[in-house]
């Protein structure tokens, strides 16, 4: 009995092994792409007009079709299924055998460019699921790119002018939007821009895991993420501070643009760049304002409390502000930023703006400066009483600026603890307290408003100037 038991095991497992080896071998010799190649052969034979073509088609042997691109460090096997991509006879065929649309392949022969350099997808894969890599279980970071974003691939070799001239202007439009919507107020590109957001230099070639995909609708890939993120940043990243002000149709353009920001450069003999390709900063004040400031300060005419930043964003182009604030003060704010708030430092070593550009920018901001000077305030003439100042502050100012002068966090007033306010000329602060900022929520505290005497004001200002030392 015992030996028979072992013999039965031997027999049965031998049979199982044999069967599975055969099935596995069949799976190896009859892959998905062979089916398409057989269809291709059949269709070519049917469509052939002359005998030579027919003969050639009959000689077709199924094999993995691959394009080896040494300099691009790619291997593309897409044509194992997409057999007819270069064949005009297949113009009316169905996918995957259909000929490539348009005449792109004339100047971009597949044997030099391959497929994935424009279309993405996994070139090495030999089955549809993994080659197109649409689902996350394929673990490929760059699924085939939807055609509406395909222009992001063109900029690897071409400049915007050439593309726009040929009618492919999504990318240039996207770049323009990027320039004008103030994206660089928070995001650095080529080293220039604010520090609030992430650097965008290679955002187009970041792997999927770089992006929080949790709330993305539809396929969880980079393309959908960008599109939906431009539609509503907080729907994807609840804690995001990103401010976005674009029309729905503009999201695709912006997505195309950011997807074109890729790591690595094409080899020299592929590149055809003559004109501009990157968004370089213009140096007129208005353009600079649009590129760096507009996302937060909008028109600059309104001060408003922003729920995203959780603080009030001042109206920097309002005459009431410009009347009291001199150029030196504004320059200091622009160059050093306001520590403790979202306002970035813009000097060359931080935000990356040159002195000339900052001057141009300030010239633009201050263009509506009224000619009338504010009435002077003789701050030095008062012997100030800090204790009284504190009492006054706690009752009248703390309502909006907070007890510690911190501002933000639900308080309507600005942060008074930051170095810019602390380092400002006390006379400037006193005038601000006295006259308020008309059309904003800062009321005049002088005699015509709340009823502070000049002495009250001097006391409060001197107290405010000591606030950074308070914990």
């Amino acid at each position, binding site marked *: 009995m015992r*030996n028979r038991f072992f013999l*039965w095991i031997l027999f049965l497992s*031998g049979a199982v092994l044999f069967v599975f080896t055969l099935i596995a071998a069949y799976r190896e010799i009859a892959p998905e792409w062979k089916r398409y190649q057989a269809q291709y052969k059949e269709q070519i034979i049917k469509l052939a007009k002359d005998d030579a073509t027919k003969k050639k088609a009959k000689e077709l042997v199924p094999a993995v079709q691959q394009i*080896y691109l040494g300099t691009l460090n790619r291997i593309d096997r897409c044509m194992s299924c997409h057999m007819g991509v270069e064949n005009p006879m297949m113009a009316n065929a169905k996918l995957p055998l259909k000929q490539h649309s348009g005449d792109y392949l004339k100047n971009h022969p597949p044997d030099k460019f391959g497929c994935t350099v424009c279309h993405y997808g996994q070139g090495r894969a030999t089955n549809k699921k993994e080659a197109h890599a649409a689902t996350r279980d394929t673990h490929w970071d760059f699924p085939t790119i939807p055609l509406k974003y395909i222009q992001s691939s063109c900029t690897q070799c071409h400049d915007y002018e050439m593309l726009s001239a040929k009618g492919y202007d999504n990318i240039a439009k996207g770049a323009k939007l990027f320039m004008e919507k103030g994206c660089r107020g928070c995001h650095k590109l080529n080293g220039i821009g604010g520090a609030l957001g992430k650097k965008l230099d290679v955002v187009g070639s970041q792997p999927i895991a770089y992006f929080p995909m949790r709330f993305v609708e539809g396929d969880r890939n980079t393309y959908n993420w960008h599109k939906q993120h431009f539609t509503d940043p907080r729907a994807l990243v609840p804690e995001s501070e990103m401010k976005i002000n674009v029309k729905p149709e503009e999201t695709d353009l912006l997505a195309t643009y950011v997807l074109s920001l890729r790591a690595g450069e094409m080899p020299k003999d592929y590149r055809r760049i003559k004109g501009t390709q990157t968004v370089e900063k213009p140096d007129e004040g208005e353009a600079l304002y649009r590129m760096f400031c507009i996302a937060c300060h909008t028109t600059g005419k309104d001060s408003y409390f922003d729920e995203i930043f959780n603080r009030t964003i001042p109206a920097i182009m309002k005459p009431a502000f410009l009347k009291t604030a001199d150029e030196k003060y504004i320059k200091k704010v622009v160059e050093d930023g306001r520590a403790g708030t979202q306002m970035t430092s813009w000097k060359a070593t931080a935000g990356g703006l040159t002195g000339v550009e900052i001057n141009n920018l300030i010239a633009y901001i201050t263009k509506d400066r009224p000619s009338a000077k504010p009435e002077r305030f003789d701050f030095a003439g008062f012997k100030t009483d800090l204790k009284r100042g504190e009492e006054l502050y706690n009752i009248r100012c703390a309502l909006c600026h907070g007890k510690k002068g911190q501002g933000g966090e639900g308080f309507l007033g600005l942060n008074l603890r930051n170095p810019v306010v602390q380092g400002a000329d006390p006379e400037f602060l006193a005038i601000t307290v006295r006259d308020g900022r008309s059309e904003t929520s800062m009321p005049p505290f002088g005699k015509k408003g709340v009823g502070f005497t000049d002495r009250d004001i001097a006391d409060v200002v001197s107290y405010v100037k000591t606030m950074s030392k308070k914990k």
Partner: protein
Amino acid sequence: MSNETHEKTGMSRRDFLGLASLGAAVISSLTVLAGTFRMFKANVRYEESTKFKIGKAEEFPAGTVKKLDDKGVFILSKDDGIYAISAICTHLGCIVNQVDWGFQCPCHGSRYNEHGKVIGGPAPRSLEWLEISEAVDGSLEVDTAKSVPVGTKLKLYA
């Protein structure tokens, strides 16, 4: 040997089960082995394709001789057509040079005439003529993996 032991041992009875299981084991192991050997044959090559484009026909007016160093091919154009001769010496695979009277191999002194026919040295065969054809986009294509009979030229209509 003796019959006694034959009766006594299970294996020597060669019952059906023993044979069948031994057969199953051997056959299935052989199948696995066969698949294993097949695995060594690569399905793809990690090198440039043997088929490559050399440009439009206009770039090769009659009388042109062009050596493509990286591919090891001579492209020659005559009045009656264009043809490609392999630059790989048939002796041990060196690259031949073009000289007045044809081709000369620098390694072991094989000599070929202008049609690639071997005329001296250790080379066993003449240089191969390679298939040259017109691709869909109108440019010429050479395939180093496909040889054609000596004298096959592609007629140009231009």
